[in-house]
């Protein structure tokens, strides 16, 4: 819980990780390139006082995570969103067992989401069923740019992905978080294209699709899809820290999101350990759209409360104290569109 000026904010950090990128876990040069890329994001977007040394960035462990998120970070509940990256790290990047054990030991504070890779075919489906029986998760994180043998990416509307979504339906796994990394195959098209989310969301209306980093660097494509599909949501991973270095850009991102998809489908996340939640929450509660950006209305306290926690709490059925709940806003001006207009052809 975060309190400022007499207002209480129930905080859900909807995207955290417990990763191990230490050299002994790196399988090849790509393992180093991957964490170095994250670390450059961290260095580029963090305030000086929040900067971590490289060695600490490689691995945090359970204790440090609990301190950063819950003791120092005001967070009421956090959700693991693991990236496997088995082609880059010996024991994977996200630490499945450590994260799951931590969540099992702290069920009031942590939710463990799992991951799958549709290119594992039937064997992967069996594994998904077995993992679900053991861990009982309600959400998965999919990284579509994951490398797998000679394939370097997949799409959400691939036939095998649909088989996995059908299995998710049966198992009660209803929240699908999607990280659109630069998918490589086929190279002919835009690697950050989010149109496959459109197809999947249309065909699986009973599943929620949370597009992480709100589709950046293709915010416009994401907004257009999410406008048409009421089961598409935006996760603010990576977008949040722009508040510090590029506040006008952040204002436009949040302004566009509220215009296109409304205040009820946007979820806060620190993307821990890319960043820590404390400064992001403090900054967001203080944040306001610059006055000269007259195309956007000022952010309200209610909108901030929803984004910081209430929206994700609703999706994950997390108990929120009665006094902190806020009803949904009416539909946005852009409204849900009819399927026949769900066409991304014209840019």
């Amino acid at each position, binding site marked *: 819980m975060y309190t400022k000026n007499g207002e209480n904010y129930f905080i859900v950090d909807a995207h955290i990780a417990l990763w191990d990128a230490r*050299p002994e876990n790196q399988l090849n*040069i*790509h393992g*180093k*390139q*991957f964490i*170095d*890329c994250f*670390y*450059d*994001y961290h*260095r*580029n977007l*963090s305030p*000086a006082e929040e*900067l971590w*040394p*490289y060695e600490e960035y490689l691995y945090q462990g359970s204790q440090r995570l609990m301190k950063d998120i819950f003791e120092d970070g005001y967070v009421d509940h956090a959700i693991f969103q693991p990236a496997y990256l088995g082609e880059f790290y010996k024991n994977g990047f996200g630490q499945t067992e450590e994260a799951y054990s931590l969540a099992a030991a702290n069920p009031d504070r942590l939710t463990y989401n799992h991951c799958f890779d549709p290119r594992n075919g039937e064997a992967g489906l069996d594994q998904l069923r077995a993992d679900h029986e053991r861990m009982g998760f309600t959400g998965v994180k999919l990284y579509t740019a994951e490398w797998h043998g*000679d394939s*370097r990416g997949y799409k959400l509307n691939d036939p095998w992905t649909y088989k996995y979504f059908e299995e998710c339906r049966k198992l009660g796994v209803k929240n699908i978080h999607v990280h659109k*990394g*630069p998918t*490589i*195959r*086929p*190279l*002919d*098209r*835009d*690697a*950050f294209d989010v149109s496959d989310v459109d197809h999947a969301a249309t065909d699986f209306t009973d599943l929620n699709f949370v597009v992480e980093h709100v589709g*950046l*660097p*293709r*915010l*416009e494509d994401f*907004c*257009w899809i999410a406008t048409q599909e009421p089961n598409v949501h935006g996760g603010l991973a990576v977008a949040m820290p*722009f508040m*510090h*270095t*590029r*506040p*006008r*850009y952040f204002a*436009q*991102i949040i302004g*566009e999101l509220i*215009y*296109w998809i409304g205040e009820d489908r946007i979820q806060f996340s620190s993307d821990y350990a890319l960043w820590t939640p404390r400064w992001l929450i403090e900054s967001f509660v203080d944040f306001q759209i610059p006055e000269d950006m007259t*195309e956007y209305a000022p952010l309200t306290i209610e909108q901030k409360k929803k984004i910081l926690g209430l929206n994700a709490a609703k999706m994950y059925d997390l108990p929120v104290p009665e006094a902190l709940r806020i009803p949904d806003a009416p539909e946005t001006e*852009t409204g849900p569109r009819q399927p026949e207009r769900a066409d991304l052809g*014209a*840019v």
Partner: protein
Amino acid sequence: MTVLQTRPAPQTGALGTEDVRRVLGTVQDPELDEPITDLGFVRSIDISPGVRGAAVHVHLRLPTSFCSPNFAYLMASDSKDAVAALEGVATVVVELDDHHDSGLINAGLAADAGYRGTFGHEAEDSLDELRWTFRRKAHTAAMERCLTELLRADRDLAEADVGRVTLADLPSGRTKTALLRRREALGLPLEPGALVLVDHLGAPYAAADVPMALRRARSTRISIDGNAHFCRGLLRTRYAGAEADQNARPEGAEPGDQHTLLPITVKENA
């Protein structure tokens, strides 16, 4: 010491690094809609004179190891083509540094293997459609910049009325020049009476659809500007001193964009 004297004296008309840099300035990052020389992506240019012409060696660099390989390939192969077309150049080597696909791309360029020859099964047809996608986005963003500037300058102009604005209504300047260049790239009309708010085929919008078309164009512009500045910043983070090789981008600029880097923490060498 006679080292300096042993180097061949520059001849009139001899190829210089500035000549190479100038032609590399015609190579665009398709996604960010800017020359690679403005972005700081050209890391080094080396020229060795030879009997049959100069051997030119160019190194390129990108903001992260995981930048999209299709864009990386386009910029690297366009660079090779641009330099090879220069008079007095005998051989060209273009190498992309520190990218997850450096080995693949550099080998493909060295062998002139082309896009499909370089990427094999990961390439289907060509990257032409990808280029067109981003030319269209660049036009959309340039169009929105012009109209939003107009809206900000003229408070009496309503969003719903921008569908009637013509090229002649736009004040001359950088923003308008940029729009004209993007229109030309798409083959759209350039005469003063032409409507500004059009789709990539030049079709105007019905009055009722104008506000939505403008809002969509705005989200495209925000995306491109934000991404362009983030990529520039990441390059400066990754390569100390890279800011000296970058030209400022006024579109979407913020006070913090030129901030000096946070203290560099020691990273072990790869």
